[in-house]
């Protein structure tokens, strides 16, 4: 593999899918350090979400931009993270529970998304409700894919760059 970095790179362009674990929460048994870093990460993520929601309020029936942005950026980051923990940070055991389950799990939210839709329906803004429902769903899936794809390519590009540098010396 090391002798054919270009071939490996070509292969990776065709398939930049998710190679990470099936489930972000599938981390080592529920020991106290794991629970502690998940709680700490959850606090960080929730406060970031709350800050964005305070800074970007929406009127009743308006498009809930804050929760939309939170969920899309959180999905972009989990796509990137799940590649990094396999490709780069495979030795750091508490990193996935802290960043994946804690920070990003707490930053993104499903309950507010659902209540945003319900509030838009109540405000007789059915079109906004439907647009928000679909845009978040599709945007979130695309963001996970894009986060993983961009990170995979960047990691491989950096590896190739450092490999060829090592060859010149």
């Amino acid at each position: 593999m090391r002798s054919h970095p270009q071939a490996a790179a070509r292969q990776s362009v065709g398939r930049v899918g998710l190679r990470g674990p099936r489930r972000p929460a599938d981390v080592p048994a529920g020991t106290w350090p794991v629970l502690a870093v998940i709680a700490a990460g959850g606090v960080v993520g929730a406060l970031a979400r709350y800050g964005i929601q305070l800074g970007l309020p929406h009127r009743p029936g308006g498009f809930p931009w804050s929760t939309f942005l939170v969920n899309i950026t959180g999905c972009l980051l989990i796509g990137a993270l799940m590649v990094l923990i396999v490709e780069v940070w495979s030795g750091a055991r508490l990193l996935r529970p802290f960043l994946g389950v804690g920070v990003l799990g707490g930053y993104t939210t499903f309950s507010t998304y659902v209540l945003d839709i319900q509030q838009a329906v109540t405000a007789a803004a059915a079109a906004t409700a439907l647009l928000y429902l679909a845009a978040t769903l599709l945007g979130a899936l695309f963001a996970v894919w894009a986060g993983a794809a961009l990170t995979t390519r960047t990691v491989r590009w950096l590896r190739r760059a450092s490999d060829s540098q090592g060859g010149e010396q």
Partner: protein
Amino acid sequence: MTFLLVALGAALGAPLRYLTDRFIQARHDSVFPWGTLTVNVAGSLLLGLLVGARAGPAIMALAGVGFCGTLTTYSTFSYETLRLAQGGSRFYAIANIVANVVAGLGAAFLGLAIGLASAG
């Protein structure tokens, strides 16, 4: 003060999501992410209940933004859905989207109705 309440709710919600997921995923062999579906539906029900009952700002910050917001997750839901689709389980991926959205909305409306009724 509000930030403290959000933080406290989140400190409970995140580990509870993890423990619920582990508890549920250990009890079936399917690749379907029942654990995330469970927390998303439960959190939507509770948030609907709080909104319906017109909970005050302190309870809303603690239980709504902090606890429900953190108990539920969109990043894990999306990641698991895409992982199912790319792992060849297209049917499960679509079923996961439909189940989360339909059950989540249903739970929110149910919670709202119960909350409204209890608030009189």
